[in-house]
Each structure stands twice: as structure tokens, then as C-alpha cells.
């Protein structure tokens, strides 16, 4: 397992990348991105068995990841670049013309690390199930990971996929819900209550774990536990409690920064709170 302090140091830089990318484009989704940093860094710098230097679409013999809530692309792009999938300098092009870093992840521009477009919500769990089935057909013991927003599970397709995976024992799949309780129009309770998420997924025959998504030790431990539980006949869902905007004080405790970019002044305030550990792009 990687050194926890080193991982935290990567997290700080990824957070800097996120706010700089979003401010640089004057658009994007900083809130959810900041909340999921520990999860991404733990996955790509510790948990996943993958080949950053030789990305290929099929990912045979590798663990693979799908981002279903594509709007938090900044955290994914930063993590991929920092892990060596593509040049760090390319982060500067986020959401700009002729960039491979589209507002929402895409495959058309051949950005290393991306295997499926996402943005229109609710589709990534089905894709992850499909990839997990193919791994079984190919006699691979690799794992498929996917991440979803909590608001995203209001989409019906998520429950079609939940029913399928639970009924068919797709047990090489570790899905995670970013449970920050916030979406564009307000709290998830105000918009459309998610009810008891844990019992809902358990009722669909999933093994459900819970973790504190902003505590690196908890993330590492729960992701490792999830990995150890694969191959037992059930898909795994991690309900990951996070704080939207984590790490930037004025973005926390509100849904306001779901999809709003900080201006230059606000960016400076944010950067003051985040150590430059690996060098800005």
C-alpha cells in the first residue's frame, strides 16, 4: 500500500488542478470534483492494477474505471495526468476549443484513460456491468470500478442496472456513490429524497459498504475491503460520504458550487488553502 502522506500530498495538488482548470475555463463543476479527490487518488495511485503508460481501449488484464457522473471530469483528468496517462500540461486546455479534455469525458479525442463518454447521467453502471461481463468471458480476474453521483441515482437506468447486476451476480464490479447530499437545485432531500440508500441497494442483492470519502485512511481501508469481497456472487456498492467542495472553505456546506467556476479573486482564496505539492501545470 502506498504511503498515506504521499497520497494526501497528491490530493492537495489534484485539488489545486481542479480549481485552476475550472477557473481557467470559467466553467465546469468544482464542487463534486473536490469532494471525490481522495477516492480518485486512492484508486489510481494505490488500488487499481493498471498500465498508465500504455493505455489501450480494451484494458485486458487491467482493472478499469468508468465515471458515470461525467461532470466531475476535472478530478478525473487531473488524477489521470498526475498518474502519467497524458501530459500534465494538457490540463490547461480543459473545456477549450480543440482540446482532448472535453467538458464531459469523451472517447472521440482519444484521451488516454477514457473508455466511455459520460455526461448524460445514469448510463455508466450499465457500461461497467458490460465491461465486467466481458472480463468474465475473457477469463480475467480484473475488477471494474465505477463512480456515480447521489443525485444521479434518480435516473431510472441506474435501477435497471442495479437489478441486473444483483440478479446475475456481477461480482467483479465495485461501484461507488458520491453521497454528498447535494445536487444542482438544492439538497437531495429537497429535490427528490434518496431515502435509505444502503437498504435500497441491499434489497437489489448488492453487498453494501460505507466509507468516509474525505478520510484517506477510510478510503484505502474500505476500497481494500471491497476488493477482498469480489468474487463472492454479489456486486459491491460503496456509499461514500463526502463534502461537496472539500478543501476550499467557501465551497463547502452548500450546493452553490456544484457547477460554478470561481473568478480570479476566488481562485486565489482557494489556492491559499491548498499546498502546491507536485508543481502546478
Amino acid at each position, binding site marked *: 500500500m502506498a504511503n498515506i502522506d504521499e497520497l494526501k500530498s497528491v490530493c492537495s495538488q489534484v485539488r489545486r488542478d481542479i480549481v485552476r482548470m475550472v477557473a481557467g475555463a470559467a466553467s465546469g463543476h468544482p464542487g463534486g470534483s473536490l469532494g471525490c479527490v481522495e477516492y480518485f487518488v486512492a484508486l489510481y495511485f494505490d488500488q487499481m492494477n493498471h498500465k498508465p503508460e500504455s493505455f489501450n*481501449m*480494451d*484494458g*485486458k488484464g487491467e482493472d*478499469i474505471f*468508468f465515471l458515470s457522473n461525467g461532470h466531475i471530469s476535472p478530478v478525473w483528468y487531473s488524477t489521470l495526468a498526475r498518474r502519467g496517462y497524458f501530459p500534465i500540461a494538457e490540463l490547461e486546455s480543459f473545456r477549450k476549443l480543440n482540446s482532448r479534455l472535453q467538458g464531459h469525458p*469523451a*472517447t*472521440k479525442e482519444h484521451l488516454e484513460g477514457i*473508455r*466511455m*463518454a*459520460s*455526461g*448524460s447521467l*445514469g*448510463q*455508466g*453502471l*450499465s*457500461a*461497467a*456491468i*458490460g*465491461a*465486467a*461481463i*466481458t*472480463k468474465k*468471458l*475473457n477469463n*480475467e480476474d480484473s475488477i471494474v470500478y465505477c463512480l456515480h453521483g447521489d443525485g444521479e441515482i434518480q435516473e*431510472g*437506468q441506474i435501477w*435497471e*442496472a442495479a*437489478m*441486473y447486476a444483483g440478479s446475475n451476480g456481477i461480482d467483479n464490479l465495485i461501484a461507488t456513490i458520491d453521497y454528498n447530499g447535494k445536487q444542482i437545485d438544492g439538497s437531495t432531500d429537497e429535490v427528490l429524497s434518496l431515502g435509505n440508500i444502503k437498504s435500497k441497494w441491499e434489497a437489489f442483492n448488492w453487498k453494501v459498504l460505507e466509507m468516509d470519502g474525505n478520510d484517506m485512511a477510510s478510503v484505502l481501508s474500505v476500497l481494500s475491503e471491497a476488493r477482498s469481497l469480489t468474487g463472492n456472487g454479489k456486486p459491491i456498492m460503496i456509499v461514500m460520504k463526502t463534502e461537496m467542495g472539500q478543501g476550499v472553505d467557501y465551497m463547502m456546506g452548500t450546493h452553490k458550487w456544484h457547477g460554478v467556476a470561481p473568478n480570479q479573486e476566488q481562485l486565489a482564496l482557494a489556492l491559499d488553502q491548498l499546498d502546491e505539492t507536485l508543481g502546478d501545470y
Partner: protein
Amino acid sequence: MIKDIEVLEEKDTRSGFGAGLHELGKENENVVALCADLTGSLKMDAFKEDFPDRFFQVGIAEANMIGIAAGMTIGGKIPFTGTFANFSTGRVYDQIRQSVAYSGKNVKICASHAGLTLGEDGATHQILEDIGLMKMLPGMTVICPCDYNQTKAATKAIAKYDGPVYLRFGRPKVPNFTPADTEFVIGKADVIQEGTDVSIIATGHLVWKAIEAAKILLENGISADVINIHTIKPLDEEAVLRSVKKTNCVVTCEEHQRHGGLGDSVAQVLSRFYPAPQEYVAVNDTFGESGQPSELMAKYGIDTENIIEAVNTVIARK
């Protein structure tokens, strides 16, 4: 010549799909099939029986089926999804758009019971907009074969093509007239009969109607160039232009809305390169209804006599 075309039997195009899929199962272990609770209707039973490990029953959940199929391509599988045309397109348009077309995934969306000839189930199931929906998606290949043999050949051909495909076929038994051993070339039109007075360009079930019309027209001294466009996208523009440059007028025939179908694709080619009078034999901006296929074809104006009428009209406009 058209008068020599022999009809040995009547068969449904969906059975051509089922037979092609079964052969693919034997020939290519990467071929997998998914179905949303319509295995019998899609004639996927033989594949399911002989390749149970590669057959995936997803239940009545078409959006999930398309998404799973897209994901299965990662690692080299070639998924064929099967359900009715309505549920293969309109119901799952966003899933196809994002997870299949935009993501460039090698998924074969196989759609039965297209159009009015689904019959008695009525308009909820009789999609007449699917060709338009699918051809608008960048990178999507759209295929609508005319009979059992051609559907079987098309099913096998699309497995060898790397990219998303929409394959449209139907429920009723129709004349099976194309030779069984004909190679299916995606994007290459079949010239069924050479003629000089009018081009009749048809797709799917309307190809046989076009042949019937051409026979009657010939008896009345009108020589029709009859072309089977089994691939609507990419369209064989060269075949269209070669024909219309000879005849100087065209009738397009399809079991689809007039808006957005084969006719519009042909019109686009002609308006750019060789403007010529065109008449549409297609459903004119309306939903269908319950009834027998033959009754519906007649009521909604996509029958043999409608083609003859359109030919007379378009020739008069030259």
C-alpha cells in the same frame, strides 16, 4: 430481368436475422447476444440454445441493455442487441447517442417489428421514425434489408464491420427472392432491374412492392430502373446518381415516415448534384393503427398501386 425473379417461398426477415446470428455464434466466439424479453419474437432462440454463455437476457430494460452492450465491447466482444424497433431506438436514443455512437462502440442494434407491418399491435409499437433517428447519429450505419436471405447476409456482414450499426427488419412473411449466396456489401446498392423512364429506389419490405410495380409498369410500356437500397447510411450516392442521370426522375419507397427516411437521403443527393423530380411513397406524417399488414400498407399509401401512381405523377413532372 425482373419478370424472371423467382419467389421460392415467403419468409420473415426476422428469421433471417436469427439464422445469421446463429451462424455467427458458430463462426466467431466474440459474438454475444442480448435480448430484452423478446427472444422468440427476435428469433434468437437457436443462438440462446447453442451458446448459452454468450446469450444475455436483460429483462424488460432496454436502456440497460444498450449500456451493457456498449461496455461489453471493451475487451473485444461484438454485442448484438435484439428487441422491437421502437424499443431499439426511440426508447433508448440517449443511450445509443452517448454510450454507443459518441463513444464509437462496436454495437449492433438489431431491430425487429419495424414499421406498419407489425400489424395488430397498433401505433404504440409501429415505429416509423427509426431510420431518421438512427441516420442522424454521426458514425451510425443504417441497414434495412429486403428479404430473409438478405437479412441473414447482412447480419453476418455487420459482424465483420467495426463500428455501430442499426439493422432494421420486420415481422411478416414476405417473398424471399434474393439468392441465398449473395455477398452483402455494406453501402453498395443492388440494381434489380435496369430501366430508362423512371428510377424506383426502395428499401426493406418496399423493395418487393417496387418489383411488383415495375412488372405492371413494364406491361404498360414504362421501363423502370429498380434499385434496392439496403444501406441507407452510408448511402450509395453513385448508384442513385447513375440511375437518375439516366431516367431524370425518381420515386422513393419505404415503410417509414416521409420526413427523415430514405426519400430525404436521396433528395439530399439529388439537390446537391443532379436536381430531378421526386415522389415519395412513405407514411405521410401520421401514426399507424391496428390492422393486418396488407390492410395497413394499403391504407397508409405504401403499396404497389401507390408506387405505380407515384411513377405516373413523377414522369408527368419531367
